[in-house]
């Protein structure tokens, strides 16, 4: 009998007991009618070949294991970043269950969001009644100060008009006329989660700046000395935004973070559930129009938003997820240039410490080959950081990065001696990556949780950076931005390197001469 009350066997050990092994063998042999062992072995070998890689890259229609999600997920992220705001997704309800689960699995936090629960009748007659009732219920039950509406693909396919629906809802008394309901159409069949973030954020800013969808007056900009900061869709938001605020605080820069979910996705366990916590207030959004400039940390995540802001007379600067020394330098120098405030000695010391750490450790990363995948901005930032460390970003892949993104990454690679023979792969997925890892091997893989399947198949150790990260806890609570963030990412790379080296030199009496106590 396998189970043991003194030391309860969990799934990972229970099913290795002889009783279960025999059971699996019996099931496989007698009932599964699996493919012959020879065919299996041949196919395993074949998928590792260059020939398979070519066929794999010849795919035109099928996507396997993509590294992207759909627009409304990003729209919910954006909405969550505003004070006492409840995201309301107009369309099928299953989508909202998925977004909430997805975020909760990553952040290990509640994610509040409602659906208009459209079903077959709404598919035929449109979802107006769902909007009318839905807004009323949300307003009465959860008492938000703002409801930010976005759409699922169902509502988009049948062509529901959010602006008209919300106005009608107000006319029908569903919610008070003056209640703020910014909105954005976020079709899942266009772009990805970063597009949805962009659309929703643009929708909210436009709503407040341009006269509340025709129900108020447009704001007039009276420029001041403050700046706005937009982070973009970011799985490390709970660590990153406080770090940005800290750095800007050290510089004495008057700033507004537009969209800040770093509190609501990081609430304490103290006996109280906070459906709402922190976030950018409506007053802050309105005042943000007067800022001198707006900085986006992730340009691909904020294309439309930044265009809108620029049209309002701001100086706008979009980065691509700057990381490490030069990335952070560029960000801080830009802030300094815009605001006229010098970069303080504290930050210079932090910079020096990061350089110190890199100098201490660079020999272990120099020339190491990396494959990385993820959102387009993160890929640009991480590629630059790897090059800065003397590492080689051999395969840089993004499912939601387009050809233009690919050229940008390639230019970055081509400009560095460490980018030689390195290549960008736009609009590719993790099954493409599998072929790359088998045919052109690398030392380490950087990606989200789904990269663990590649780690298993290809034996390439995975460093978890990106979204989502479901299978490691609390990474999102710490920054990867700024010099401090650079230190952390550097440590992650080194930890994985040393772990792999130790694991590879542990053979007792065979390889352990290299199992060094000092590395």
């Amino acid at each position: 009998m396998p189970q043991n009350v003194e030391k309860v066997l969990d799934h990972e050990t229970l099913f290795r007991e002889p009783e279960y092994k025999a059971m699996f063998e019996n099931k496989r042999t007698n009932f599964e009618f699996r493919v012959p062992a020879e065919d299996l072995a041949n196919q395993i070998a074949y998928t590792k070949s260059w020939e398979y890689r070519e066929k794999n890259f010849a795919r035109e229609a099928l996507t396997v294991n993509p590294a992207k999600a759909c627009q409304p997920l990003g729209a919910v992220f954006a909405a969550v970043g505003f004070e006492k705001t409840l995201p309301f997704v107009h369309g099928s309800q299953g989508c909202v269950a998925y977004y909430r689960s997805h975020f909760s699995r990553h952040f290990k936090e509640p994610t509040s969001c409602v659906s208009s629960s459209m079903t077959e009748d709404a598919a035929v007659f449109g979802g107006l009644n769902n909007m009318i009732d839905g807004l009323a219920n949300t307003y009465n039950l959860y008492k938000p100060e703002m409801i930010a509406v976005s759409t699922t693909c169902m509502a988009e396919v049948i062509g529901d008009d959010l602006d008209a629906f919300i106005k009608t809802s107000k006319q029908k008394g569903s919610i008070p006329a003056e209640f703020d309901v910014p909105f954005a159409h976020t079709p899942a069949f266009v772009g990805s989660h970063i597009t949805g973030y962009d659309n929703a954020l643009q929708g909210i800013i436009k709503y407040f700046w341009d006269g509340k969808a025709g129900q108020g007056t447009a704001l007039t900009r009276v420029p001041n000395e403050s700046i706005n900061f937009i982070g973009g869709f970011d799985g490390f938001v709970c660590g990153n935004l406080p770090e940005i605020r800290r750095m800007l605080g050290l510089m004495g820069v008057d700033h507004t973070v537009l969209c800040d979910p770093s509190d609501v996705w990081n609430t304490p366990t103290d006996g109280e559930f906070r459906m709402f916590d922190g976030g950018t207030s409506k007053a802050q959004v309105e005042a943000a129009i007067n800022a001198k400039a707006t900085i986006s940390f992730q340009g691909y995540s904020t294309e439309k938003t930044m265009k809108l802001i620029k049209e309002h007379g701001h100086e706008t600067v979009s980065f691509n997820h700057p990381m490490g020394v030069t990335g952070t330098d560029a960000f801080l120098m830009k802030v300094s240039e815009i605001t006229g405030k010098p970069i303080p000695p504290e930050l210079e010391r932090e910079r020096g410490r990061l350089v110190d750490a890199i100098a201490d450790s660079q020999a272990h990363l120099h020339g190491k080959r990396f494959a990385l995948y993820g959102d387009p901005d993160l890929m640009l930032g991480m590629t630059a950081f790897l090059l800065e460390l003397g590492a080689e970003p051999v395969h840089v892949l993004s499912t939601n990065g387009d050809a233009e993104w690919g050229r940008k990454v390639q230019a970055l690679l081509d400009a560095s001696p460490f980018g030689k023979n390195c290549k960008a792969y736009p609009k590719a997925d993790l099954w493409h990556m599998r072929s790359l890892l088998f045919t052109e091997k690398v030392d380490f893989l950087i990606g989200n949780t789904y990269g663990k399947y590649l780690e298993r198949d290809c034996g390439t150790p995975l460093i978890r950076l990106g979204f989502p990260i479901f299978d490691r806890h609390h990474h999102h609570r710490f920054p990867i931005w700024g010099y401090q963030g650079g230190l952390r990412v550097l440590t992650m790379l080194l930890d994985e390197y040393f772990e792999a080296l130790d694991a590879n030199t542990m053979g007792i009496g065979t390889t352990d001469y290299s199992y060094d106590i000092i590395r």
Partner: protein
Amino acid sequence: MSLTVDENKALIEEVLKAYPEKTAKKRAKHLGTFEEGKPDCGVKSNIKSLPGVMTIRGCAYAGSKGVVWGPIKDMIHISHGPVGCGQYSWASRRNYYIGETGIDTFGTMQFTSDFQEKDIVFGGDKKLEKIIDEIEVLFPLNKGITIQSECPIGLIGDDIEAVSKKKAKEYVGKTIVPVRCEGFRGVSQSLGHHIANDAVRDWIFDKVDPNKNTFEATPYDVAIIGDYNIGGDAWSSRILLEEMGLRVIAQWSGDGTIAELENTPKAKLNVLHCYRSMNYISRHMEEKYGIPWVEYNFFGPSMIEKSLREIASHFDDTIKANTEVVIAKYRAMVDEVIAKYKPRLEGKKVMLFVGGLRPRHVIGAYEDLGMEVVGTGYEFGHGDDYQRTTHYVKDGTLIYDDVTGYEFEKFVEKVQPDLVGSGIKEKYIFQKMGVPFRQMHSWDYSGPYHGYDGFAIFARDMDMAINSPVWGLTKAPWKKAA
């Protein structure tokens, strides 16, 4: 504390006050108290969720791809439509299986047609054809393909049935199953289960070549129906059935294969765990092939013993005798588990809110540990589920169907249970409130919970949830003193 019938009524009334009148009237029908002797739980169910209330429910696609079809490991399941649905349901349900992923098994992979605007405008049938061609090139060892429709498919008028037939002919003998599980159909995951069951009937049973994958039948052949092998549940169940002397010829659908589905009509008895999601195909097999089916419950020793004997009653004396041997064999281990954990859990109150089976099925396991379930409800149960629930719950149990975020929070606040068992969306809400919690869909990444081996894990997990030192830390000491 558990409340009295009157206290429950007052609580429900108070909670309903927050709703607009129309909504309150509708929600009132879903909230109630079980009263001893009544034939049901006094609530309405399987009705559309109200917009904007924060329902916990999902959709038909989740019921078909996520629950019924997804675990069939040697088939490729295409999430047909935009990228999200497949992404969010990718490998998140912990349907354990054994096989070479990407080679001859495909369970933890995400195949999607990643619809773009042009596919919506011009239709996706041509793309689907091409996807099937590409699958055949890159994954030639797959044993079949299912097309799991996402919302747009039914709205833009694609003919996935025609594509399936055409491609099945082209790849001679290939099983290609179109499933109309668009997320807007029905009111919850539940219709997706039904649609998926019907697709098995229409596209597997009705098309199977009787000479394919044959084996010699025995009088002891049974099929496990409605076990998704979450954390290995079907395995820790199967082992008991085999020890009884039965031969399990198929698992539906955890760690299942298409051959097992095809051969199930040869079973002598179908044993059904998740009634809600697979009663349809069980009834069909009874009508068409004359296979009887019996519901069973493998949560906790009391229910396991009862179920083992019930299953054995369909067979001869050898099986019945074996069954007593199996029960006796595990008795000592089970007694040790209870002796260890019952003193730590005795009298603890539990509130549940799960899918279509566990709101009733796990109650016995808690009771075996001396715990009491004081509130329960289904995300997508029907009337027959609430009828079955009456056999499990005690007088005065608070019942909440398709509970909303608001209601659940208020109920827990008032009832103050020692443990809440629900899903990932609920977990952190209650933990913030200082209430111990276990996910009862995914077993909180633990499990199995089925069978005797699973019960030991279940008991250990409930103990570690409730008796964790962390719950003594939620209040800062300087506040405690104040």
